[in-house]
């Protein structure tokens, strides 16, 4: 996505030059597939959602209107606040854990594994879990973490605990565990990519200049892999903010997230209310990404 935007924006000034009508036409034709696709599958649906969010509804039908009731209810309901707090909590903790694990794995792959075939081999190993659907990966935690699951049985057999740990499953712990498991790869890939493109001579120079390995990490590697970290963070944050199925299954239906609220509203035929929630969620995520992009100029760094 971001790379295409770069291209189209850099192509603009050249096509804007009024050299000939033919050039303009070619420019338009070249841009049209992207415009069509984004227009039909991104812009139009969003416009529809925004429009429906002002509609009125009864229990079984909804009809065009221009009312603010959906937003009024959403923004004044105590549930919205608690659900957003919960979602931010899930997002924050998941992001942090994914970052720590993702960075460590990427660092190991990029700097400790010497040969390229080995690096690629190990990297592919990281993607093995992705050969199955993410729902299956998530659900397979349930028998593992259950009251009589493998985890509890193993811990009891080792004598570490006397009674099964109840909080392993159907808890916030389980939700975050599943999130981290599902989304860490989205952090590993861009960070690994940034690290591989990092000019090794910079590290040599830093070492020659007397930097300790910690200083190399904090002063050279982290600043130079920031774009990768940021791209990974955007992936993780947007995925967690919009999730509903992981929260539902891993919390045993006992925790709510913004996505679940929307899915509930859709299930109850409250499309206008669901649209309003979706618009608010969209704006929230956009603001979050906007803030994150403040820290790094991804276009420049790529």
């Amino acid at each position, binding site marked *: 996505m971001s790379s295409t935007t770069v291209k189209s924006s850099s192509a603009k000034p050249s096509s804007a030059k009024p050299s000939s009508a033919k050039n303009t036409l070619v420019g338009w034709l070249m841009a049209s597939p992207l415009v069509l696709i984004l227009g039909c599958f991104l812009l139009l649906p969003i416009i529809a959602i925004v429009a429906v969010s002002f509609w009125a509804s009864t229990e079984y039908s909804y009809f065009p209107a221009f009312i603010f009731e959906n937003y009024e209810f959403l923004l004044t*309901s105590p*549930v919205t606040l*608690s*659900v957003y707090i919960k979602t931010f909590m899930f997002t924050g903790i998941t992001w942090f854990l994914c970052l720590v694990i993702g960075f460590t794995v990427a660092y190991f792959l990029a700097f400790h594994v010497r040969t390229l075939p080995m690096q690629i081999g190990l990297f592919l190993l990281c993607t093995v879990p992705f050969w199955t659907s993410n729902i299956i990966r998530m659900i397979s935690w349930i028998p593992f973490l259950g*009251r009589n699951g493998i985890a509890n049985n193993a811990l009891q057999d080792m004598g570490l605990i006397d009674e099964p740990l109840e909080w392993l499953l159907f808890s916030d712990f389980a939700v975050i565990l599943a999130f981290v498991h599902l989304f860490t790869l989205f952090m590993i890939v861009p960070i690994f990519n940034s690290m591989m493109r990092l000019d090794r001579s910079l590290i040599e120079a830093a070492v020659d200049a007397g930097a300790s390995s910690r200083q190399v990490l904090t002063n050279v590697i982290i600043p130079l892999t920031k774009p990768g970290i940021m791209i990974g963070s955007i992936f993780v944050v947007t995925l967690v903010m919009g999730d509903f199925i992981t929260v539902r299954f891993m919390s045993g*239906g*006992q925790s709510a997230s913004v996505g679940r*609220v929307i899915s509930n509203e859709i299930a*109850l*035929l409250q499309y206008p209310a669901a649209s309003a929630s979706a618009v608010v969620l969209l704006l929230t995520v956009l603001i979050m990404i906007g803030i994150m992009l403040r820290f790094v100029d991804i276009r420049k760094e790529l």
Partner: protein
Amino acid sequence: MKSKTSNKAGSKYLNSKGTQRRTLMKGAAATVAAGTITGAPLIWAQNIKNVTLRQFGTGVSNLNDVANKVKEDLGFTLEMTALDSDSVTQRAATQPKSFDIADIEYWICKKVWPAGNLQAMDTSKIDNYDNIVGIFRNGKLNPDSVIAQGTAPHSVGFVDGPEGKEFVDEESGWMTLIPTIYNADTLGIRPDLIGREISTWAELLNPEFKGKASILDISSIGIMDAAMVCEAMGEISYGDKGNMTREEIDKTMAIFTEAKKNGQFRAFWKSFDESVNLMSSGEVVIQSMWSPAITAVRSKGIPCVYQPLKEGYRSWGGGLGLSKNLSGLELDAAYEYINWYLSGWVGGYLMRQGYYSAVPSTSKDFMSEDEWGYWFEGKESQGEIVNPQGVVLEKAGAVRDGGSFEERMGRVACWNAVMDENQYMVRKWNEFIAA
């Protein structure tokens, strides 16, 4: 109160209407006979093979075996789509062109009928109409039964004409849904993990089962179970559990929110499979449950009881509704299908899973005497009881939880319902889930 008085009026009406209907039926039979002579049905029978009817509904009755049998017996194709209750409601209300036959519950009917996507059925075209259990016609299992609270099927079963939008209380001859299956629900328990007698709904919130209880997260049904519990605890007495006031909803949800915060619940379930898994893994020892889910747990060899409780059952019923878009040959095929549905084979199939059929008398012919005795009459089984797939459910000498049809359906305290304050209730339910 209102419904009671109008039902008296309804039964009076029935007497005059009943005779009228029978004459009509004779007339219809005569027409059919005349048709046979001209040979028209033969052409019709060939055309009907090209008909495809699209049916959707909840998983309970959307069975491929039924579709196969339809092909075999009637010759036309029935496409089945199974969805959860919410999606079913959604589709019936918003996508009329996506289905020909809606297999929905009566409370869903109350919700979606005003959307105008379904057409009423002419009961004179239903062969077994007179044999349909009283619950679906005048609301009474026996003449002296008291009608339970909630959306009782007969109250949304009839409209005033083919285009009718308003439900009427008497048997008007225009039916919204042709009843197919129904059952009485209660709590499921794991007797091996509880080890004592459970006799009241109040046990669901007993701190003894902290972290081992569950309730279903489908607001319109969950609230009923919650109400049964609160009433059994003596905390709230409801005017009508099926149509609560805001105050009653608030009180009910307050009790359940407190229990949730105290860690009473292990999980909430939304689908049949989830309830089976929670129970069979021992994560949960007491929860709201559906009858075939109990059977599914038991067929894994895990003890599970559908515990009859002194306050009575929460009951539900489903039926087939016709899409407004059906006409001509397809409409004829749909009537044909419905008549076939009530003629016994499906009834027997469903009853061997623990549901009840709307016309038990025809189902009896498709069940063995032992099966009929076990499932319907509440008698001790003589031999092994197997389900339609051939899995052994019970050994000889078993007795159905709750007993006979009369004992179970006669003790319904409340029907699944949609309330006047439904939107308020849903908001409160969502707060409870998010709490």
